[in-house]
């Protein structure tokens, strides 16, 4: 998934593309381009979901007040 394309946007665009394709009134070359874009989105959304490793961090305030991520161990105090 590209940085500027969130999963949410990708899913929304995908839904839009399928609706356009199902309406069936776009010119053929446009439809082919839409199909290609849709296939790409499906692949990248699938890859996003496949990043199965859950990331858990603990957020702490640094001395400057900026957030710092630390590993989180469940059960710590």
């Amino acid at each position, binding site marked *: 998934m590209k940085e500027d394309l969130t999963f949410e946007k990708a899913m929304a665009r995908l839904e839009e593309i399928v609706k356009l394709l199902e309406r069936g009134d776009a010119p053929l070359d446009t439809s082919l381009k839409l199909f290609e874009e849709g296939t790409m989105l499906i692949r990248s959304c699938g890859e996003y*979901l496949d990043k199965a490793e*859950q990331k858990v*961090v603990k957020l702490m305030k640094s001395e400057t007040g900026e957030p710092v991520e630390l590993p989180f161990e469940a059960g710590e105090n």
Partner: protein
Amino acid sequence: MNAKIYGVTELNNRIKALLDSDAELTAVFVRGELSNYKIYPSGHHYFTLKDQEGTLRAVMFRREASKLRFKPENGMKVIAFGRVTVFPRDGQYQLYCAELSPDGIGELHIAFEQLRDKLYKEGLFDKDRKKPLPKYPERIAVITSPAGAAVRDIIRVLGKRYPCAKVIVLPVRVQGAEAPPEIVGAIRYANKYKVADLIITGRGGGSIEDLWAFNDERVARAIFESEIPVISAVGHEPDVTIADYVADLRAATPSNAAELAVPDSAELRETLLSTQIRAVQALNRMISQRRDRLMTLAEKRVMKSPLNYIEDRRLLLDHLQKHFISAAQRIVAIKKERYVHLAASLDAMSPLKVLGRGYSLAQKLDGTVIKTAAEVQCGETIDLRLSSGALKCEVKERFEA
């Protein structure tokens, strides 16, 4: 002296029977302060209730003690409920405690209801002020105790359903006086640094006092002001806190909060698969529709034998030409007929026709027709037009009428 002499046990039993026959003592509430609190290996709890002047021994058996929703400590003000009876072996009466709750609950309830009504009137619970939750959150901030079961439940469920979301734990205390400012601080901090697109805050179940941080006005306002949507997950189903009312979504438990926060990635994968199938089907349908249209067009006679088309056009042209010619001839005939007619009427009106009857036309040399004798002078030359030819004449004499 006829006084009856009791055995010890007999007397104890007599006293026990006396106490047991008092209906009020079989179900009594008593207020006091805990002391000498001891939990025996058997699981039974032994303690003393006291006030300024007196003490009362009490026992709470394991079965009842397991239902305690707070941790009793010496010095704590409590209200106990149970029956008073005698334990004949010790010759001691004591309270067999069935329920124990911290004193002051009544005041807390009043405070809760007052705050709830106040915030309700201010519109903090309004449905239209609730923010929509992101459909596919990418970063989820969990504001809770890092040590409790709640954080573990949330992380476990999120990991199972939607492992692609990053979980950011903002550790806070969830009970005690420090809890509300810590929770408020964490909510504001998450907003300030935009660390997440969704917040889950809450804790596991407990007594009303344990949950009190989530009934704090400051916490309620911080949740309301949060630009990041907030799911509250406080305690278990029946416990409703102010935080639950003001949150964008209320979850029954921390695990439930995690379930509500994210979609199930297995379901999403199926959606993606069916989307792919729909796209392929739509495209195939589109191509086959176009192919059908192409075939229909190709089947037309003009496409199959273009010469036919040309011949058709030639026939049409011949036909038109024929019609055109006859139409033109008809027009010419009409015009000609009108011409003959006009010529005849013109001829009838011609002055030459009058001359034919023997009249002649006198004109001055400049062509002016002479109508009266006075118009000419003697000796003037005039033209005289006859039916055939003309004469140039000189006026000899004038006879005026």
